[in-house]
């Protein structure tokens, strides 16, 4: 993106005052947002003594991997990591396919009879919801209990994401569609060759939204899975944060002071649970390029 650093020919040089103001705001913002994350990282890598000392730790003075080995040992986490990656990949792909199709189907409500009604039906689900019990009964009667499908199907389309994608599709220049249609292009061709290439940014954003949602979800797994070996990583990791039953404490013969404090383990879990999903952001960011429409309209 180095080329973006070049000022477009039409843009004037900003005044020194504006420039300084912006710089100050951005620096402050970065610090305010970054420091807590550094704190989380530092605590997760700190020795028990340093953490028990309290205060705002920004650097692991006596680095320790104790918190991580406490969580990662035993192999439960690695299995659940696989489950989560699988659910996130399959789920995001399926969600995007259904969302894009439906959003496109709903993008010309004026011309497609009945589609406004469908849209209103969709919006209704954002306003009214069912409790856990009706949802559980439905999943059970569909025979989906204890299946991976129960982690994807009940939320495969997010009404919010659908409406956002539809909104972006509608903001594309109408002329592109009309001329393609006049040329005899099929709807599927228009969607694939005109609409999608011009909507990379929103596709990237919504994919990110779906991926993060699948990655972070634990509640569906909690309700619908009976078999703990199928648990996704978020559900497994949550269990490490809890204080543990008093029994295990009672039988332990080691000095608890040598074990990682709850705080370190908690922070290590934040890191473990967050890092994989953070990795996908740069890929999404790549599509935030300006001027996607430049070429399209000149044709």
């Amino acid at each position: 993106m180095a080329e973006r650093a070049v000022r477009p020919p039409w843009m004037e040089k900003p005044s020194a005052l504006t420039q300084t103001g912006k710089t100050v705001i951005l620096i402050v913002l970065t610090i305010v947002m970054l420091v807590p994350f550094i704190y989380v990282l530092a605590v997760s890598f700190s020795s028990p003594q340093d953490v028990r000392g309290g205060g705002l730790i920004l650097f692991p003075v006596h680095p320790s991997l104790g918190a991580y080995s406490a969580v990662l040992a035993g192999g439960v986490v690695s299995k659940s990591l696989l489950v989560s990656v699988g659910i996130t990949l399959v789920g995001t792909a399926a969600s995007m396919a259904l969302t894009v199709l439906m959003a496109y189907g709903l993008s010309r409500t004026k011309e497609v009879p009945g589609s406004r009604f469908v849209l209103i039906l969709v919006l209704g689900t954002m306003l009214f919801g069912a409790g856990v019990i009706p949802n559980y009964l439905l999943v059970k009667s569909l025979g989906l209990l204890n299946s991976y499908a129960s982690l994807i199907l009940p939320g495969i389309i997010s009404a919010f994401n659908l409406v956002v994608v539809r909104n972006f599709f509608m903001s594309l220049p109408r002329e592109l569609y009309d001329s393609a249609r006049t040329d005899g292009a099929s709807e599927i061709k228009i969607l694939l060759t005109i609409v999608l290439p011009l909507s990379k940014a929103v596709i990237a954003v919504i994919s990110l939204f779906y991926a993060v949602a699948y990655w972070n979800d634990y509640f569906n797994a909690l309700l619908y899975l009976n078999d703990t070996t199928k648990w996704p990583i978020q559900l497994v990791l949550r269990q490490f944060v809890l204080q543990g039953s008093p029994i295990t404490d009672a039988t332990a013969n080691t000095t608890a002071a040598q074990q990682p404090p709850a705080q370190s383990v908690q922070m290590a879990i934040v890191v473990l649970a967050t890092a994989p999903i953070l990795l996908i952001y740069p890929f999404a960011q790549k599509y935030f390029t300006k001027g996607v429409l430049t070429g399209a309209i000149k044709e």
Partner: protein
Amino acid sequence: MATTAEVRTGADLTAPVRPIRRPLLARMWRERWMYVFMSPGLIFFVVFKYIPLLGNIAAFQDYSPYLGFQGSAWVGFHNFTRLVTDIDVGIALKNTLIISLLQIVFAFPAPIALALLLNSVLSGGVRRFVQSVVYLPHFIGWVIVIAIWQEVLGGAGLVSTVLQNNGMHALDFMTNPSTFKELITAQVIWKEIGWGTIIFLAAITQISPQLYEAAVADGAGPWRRLWHVTLPGMVNIIVLLLILRLGSVLTVGFEQILLQQPAVGADAAQVLDTFVYYRGVLGGDWGLSTAVGLLKGVVGTLLVVGANRLAKRAGTEGLF
């Protein structure tokens, strides 16, 4: 978009092509692919969203999970009258609306402002770095966010320690009932501002650079370009998100508030969702919880419909 005017035949350059009036079935046949596209999604919404909605009959029952929907006693509107006659509902409603209002006024525009600021940064490297940093807090759960805020702004936190060492009073920001709503809003802005920019940044990518060039040719400076090109390019998505936000006006950060309620008390911090938690969920009162959910839905619907009408009158796409 004068460049594409020649595509159209008539003099009507701004309105969409008026659909030619054909018989309904013919029009539907013409758009048959659109129905194919939306049908999988439609099936999903009907099966997974509308069928479970039937469970909302619990609002008219003294529902017991053991007895089930068939076995539980019908109580008519009793659950609703209990709500309406409860003074605590009034407190919860008032707090919810104030917090919602604060968030719509301050937390909603914050990511828009940040997106515009980021957009004006020329260096791609700097922009990408700042972007990647500001969206991090979104991924930290409320439990830890609050712990971190305590470390810094709590009565025994960093700032308080410095103040006390200099002979001043400690901060009371985290535990003061009278500033609780501001605290909640500040935390939301901090946590979600970066994440919120993503959609707006995507919207900005769809603005044609030619529009900027044309504006400069007309002698527009940075502020006028912002006002006349960038913002209009984002207005549809802003309006869309604003309408949706209004639809959830009675929903404000449940976990965030519940965790911080003990220090300031329910009079300052009770919102509808925490009310439901204490009265419905903890009290095992499913009928009451469901009734509140239905009422929230009705209020949300009214606001969405109203806001949508306003938005359309103002010349935007609106929501539907």
